[in-house]
């Protein structure tokens, strides 16, 4: 029997329309706007000013703290502005706008496509290089990778788990990476394993991607320490804690991080970025983005330079169809509807999903009938109906007691609720408020 995580989970329609579309490079845009905060943690500090000329791969903003990340120019050209732009949620943020001129790359970047298998760097140097190249977790959370690889004192990494689950409906970016860039990705994985000093590495892939499983199995024949684990399809298997449970049957305790049980989880996209960073000196300046939607003319997987505007991606795929209701950044479960399409693609943009209006409107909410469906599907073993009510009433102390901070915001509860209650909306609110209180305690 195939493995999966034990607690809860749902089966949303997969809708992986773009699974057959090979990765294409999006033509260079005229302008890019690169936000200085594309990661969790402190924003980076801009090191270029208006009027400067930059080339592809040049450092334009330096990490602003321990949990932060370097940011590099994704294009060559002139810096026209270091200042505010409007992001996809309509909020003004600081970014660096560059007018594209030609495509000149930094000399140190190896643009040759030949595989470079051997890595003779020490673990410490690997992590330093990953940090220099501005690598962040590309599954969507954008946590700076070097922080995740720096194992706290007294802990030891035993398992490296590579996340190739891609459990979000519609998204196929990781799937295409596993099919088309598997050789590079697997070298990236072995570099990661070396940096962490782990013996066993597992690649978790859901069995709705049999072609990827077959292809990777062939590639990893030469690597005795890497195994591929086909998993039963269930959302949210791509959640860090769910994946650890599914692959090595270990439960990460409430409030702890995966290293507590000796596991480190990295996304397949991150592994590819690490290969390019360590072996080819290429910073994280582009990523694969799935642009999809049922009515979209040409659902695609595009290799996009960071900073390209979202609407140019949609235009490339045939333009916004009539009667589009929402454009979602990310997948339909955890993604966010965007209110400004001129916002840029960032390191964490895994998908752009165009939903027709009839599918995007929420059903009107009625009252909770205490059917406990949400309790049954919650992969963290929480009681969403209760957390919803507590957040609504502002009873934060009780929310904390009921472990609202363990919520991974997967949206399974809202998906399953027969009363269409906005469960996750309120739980997120409660979680944010509780987190604020916890931070003031320190």
């Amino acid at each position, binding site marked *: 029997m195939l493995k999966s995580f034990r607690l809860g989970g749902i089966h949303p329609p997969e809708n992986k329309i773009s699974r057959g579309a090979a990765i294409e490079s999006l033509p260079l845009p005229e302008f890019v706007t690169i936000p200085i905060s594309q990661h969790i943690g402190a924003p980076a500090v801009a090191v270029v000013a208006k009027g400067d000329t930059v080339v592809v791969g040049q450092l334009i903003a330096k990490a602003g703290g321990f949990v932060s990340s370097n940011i590099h120019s994704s294009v060559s050209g002139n810096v026209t502005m270091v200042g505010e732009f409007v992001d996809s949620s309509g909020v003004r943020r600081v970014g660096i706008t560059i007018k594209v001129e030609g495509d000149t790359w930094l000399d140190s970047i190896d643009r040759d496509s030949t595989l470079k298998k051997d890595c003779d760097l020490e673990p410490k140097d690997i992590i330093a290089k990953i940090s220099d190249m501005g690598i962040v977790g590309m599954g969507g959370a954008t946590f700076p990778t070097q922080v995740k690889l720096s194992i706290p004192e007294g802990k030891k990494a035993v398992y490296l788990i590579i996340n190739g689950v891609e459990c979000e409906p519609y998204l196929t970016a990781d799937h295409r990476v596993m099919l088309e860039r598997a050789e590079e990705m697997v070298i990236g994985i072995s570099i990661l394993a070396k940096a962490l000093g782990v013996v066993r590495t597992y690649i978790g892939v859901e069995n709705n991607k049999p072609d990827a499983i077959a292809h990777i199995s062939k590639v990893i024949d030469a690597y005795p320490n890497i195994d591929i684990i086909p998993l039963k399809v269930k959302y949210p298997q791509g959640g860090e804690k769910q994946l650890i449970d599914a692959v090595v049957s270990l439960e990460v305790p409430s409030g702890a991080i995966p290293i507590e049980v000796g596991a480190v989880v990295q996304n397949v996209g991150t592994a590819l970025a690490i290969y390019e960073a360590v072996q080819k000196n290429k910073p994280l300046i582009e990523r694969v983005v799935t642009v999809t939607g049922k009515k979209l003319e040409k659902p695609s997987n595009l290799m996009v330079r960071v900073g390209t505007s979202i609407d140019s991606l949609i235009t490339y795929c045939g333009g916004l169809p009539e009667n589009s209701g929402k454009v979602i950044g990310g997948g339909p479960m955890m993604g966010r509807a965007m209110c400004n399409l001129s916002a840029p693609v960032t390191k964490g943009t895994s998908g752009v999903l165009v939903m027709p209006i009839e599918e995007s409107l*929420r059903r009107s909410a009625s009252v909770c009938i205490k059917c406990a469906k949400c309790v049954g599907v919650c992969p963290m073993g929480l009681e969403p109906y209760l957390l919803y009510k507590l957040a609504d009433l502002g009873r934060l102390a009780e929310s904390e007691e009921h472990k609202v901070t363990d919520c991974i915001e997967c949206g399974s509860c809202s998906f399953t609720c027969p009363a269409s209650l906005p469960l996750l*909306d309120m739980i997120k*609110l409660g979680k*944010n408020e509780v987190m604020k209180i916890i931070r003031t305690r320190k």
Partner: protein
Amino acid sequence: MSSVLLFTIVTLSTLGVLAAIILYFVAQKFKVFEDPRIDTTEGMLPGANCGGCGFPGCRGFADALVKEDDISNLFCPVGGGDTMNSIASFLGKSAPEKEPMVAVVRCNGTCDNSPKVNQFDGATSCAVSASLYGGESGCSYGCLGMGDCVKVCNFGALTINKESGLAEVDEDKCTGCGACIKACPKMVIELRKKGPKSRKIYVSCINKNKGAVARKSCTVACIACTKCVKVCAFDAITIENNVAYIDSNKCRLCRKCVLECPTGAIVEVNFPPRKVVEPTTTN
């Protein structure tokens, strides 16, 4: 049969009397002295239990009023000066001096002034909307109009105007308890002095964007042009973070700034209509 009944009645009555005697002595032994003035003071308070005084309900406030020697820092915004005076004279303490306050919504971004650029489809809650994104109009500072303030108001003083999509305060009902100020995630609502005859002048905008950006999202935005600062003879207006603010302690209600404001961000309320001085300045 009758003996069973009799036995039961006698036993239960004896038990009852015994229990009463024990309870009486226990009550005497463990009696907690409570100042009777607390009850009386509580009776004098409005009994709304709104928390506007900073205490958990009117009982808590009454307790503090009786126990504290100096009550000049304690104030019931709902009862206002009259209530505080009568309580102070009852307790033989000096009453705090405080002017009546009223909540003011500092946003005039109606659907006409600040058109919607998207539609929010999540939970009907300002707090949720504010945590997700900028808001339905181009202005990410203004009133979201989903009524978190209405929900917390114990006095029915707040409503959402369906036409304008903004929160409105009924000044007669507002007691200035400040519950709405804590509930508003955008911090649009401010407590201001009620003023003579409820007359007030304030800047009805808190958009911290630069002038051009603010104006683009809302026609009545404060653009921080400093015209009002220059015209004010009492130094009541300051500009910080691209927004003007009128200090109600310094403002003498001369209304010069209202005429001067090029966008109409400064609002006057409860004034009689202006006398027409010359045709060019009429509205």
